[in-house]
């Protein structure tokens, strides 16, 4: 008689555990997508430190998924997603800076020539 509440409590605890941390499949998919996108614009782990972070965390998240440690998997995957998106943004900003400097060189050259020939 006295052992019943204990079972009930255990069951509730187990259920709560499940409810709090379901497998973060959607988050894993989002993170994979963010990594793909960052790679597509040319972010590599060697050149962009955030990309390295993203890849490492995503790999660990995959390990957590395999161990059914869903809470850790979700947190790591969430961080990895934003790391990858930051890596992507950094690469794009760098590209826009390069584009600006090419334009500035060209304009300086044109100015000089227009000045010379007048």
């Amino acid at each position, binding site marked *: 008689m006295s052992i019943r509440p204990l079972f009930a409590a255990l069951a509730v605890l187990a259920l709560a555990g499940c409810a709090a941390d379901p497998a973060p499949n959607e988050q894993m998919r989002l993170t994979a997508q963010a990594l793909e996108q960052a790679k597509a614009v040319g972010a590599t782990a060697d050149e962009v430190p955030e990309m390295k972070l993203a890849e490492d965390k995503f790999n660990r998240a995959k390990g957590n998924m395999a161990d059914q440690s869903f809470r850790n998997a979700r947190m790591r995957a969430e*961080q990895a997603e934003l790391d990858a998106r930051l890596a992507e943004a950094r690469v794009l900003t760098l590209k826009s800076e390069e584009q600006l400097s090419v334009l500035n060189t060209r304009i300086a050259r044109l100015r000089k020539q227009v000045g010379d020939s007048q």
Partner: protein
Amino acid sequence: MSLKTKALGGLILAGCASLYGCAGQHSEAALQEAGANFQKVKEDSNVLRIAPKDVIRAGESLARADRLSSYWGSGSDVAHYAYLSQRYSEIAREHTDQVLNEERAAKLELERQRLQLALRESKLLSVQQQGKWIEEQIVATATTQTDRGLVMTLGDVLFDTGEAELKNSANRVVLKVVQFLQLNPKRVVRIEGYTDSTGGKQENLKLSRDRAQSVADVLTDLGIDDKRIQVEGYGDEYPVDVNASERGRAQNRRVEIVFSDEKGQMGAAR
């Protein structure tokens, strides 16, 4: 309960408390940093205009971290949401920088087009003024069909001695080339620089490349896409005449423009 177990219990309790204290401090610092960062992006009107969604997400994550920080034992969650907030702020900042650069580039592009037109006009004008010039005086240009394709030679007179910059007297040829390339949008060119054998190998190589590059620059300035232009410097290699005579040396100092066929197929480089 014996004294021993009591002491052990006390130790464990103290350990837990100190661990929690560390974690708490760590997450507290992360929370503060994320807060400071969020404050900065929130007050930047450019960031608000360009990346409002990321700013909102940074704010939401921060609020969540803040809420959690009042609960006992939530250190890792606080650190996690502070991290996310921090990242959203950084992404908002990067995104803003990128768009601002693009806006600047769009303005510069207009300026470039305006200058390009002005340059073309002034070159046309100068060609018209020089219309009376005797052909040889303007350029020693020859266009020949070789096994490398159609080749146009820009002679030595178009450059000052030892200088890489193209003289104004080259305007006519350059305009011709530009016009030709605009009429034949699929054709690409390879610009090859050559020198005579006086001077060191390295200097000659550099001078030949610089001269070829300066021809390429003028073509780009006049509106030819630089993807269509390839540049090579060959130094004193491949002379077309002997290097023993002054005349021969002058022949060897040249820039050659090699044209691809009409489909854009280029002969092999030397």
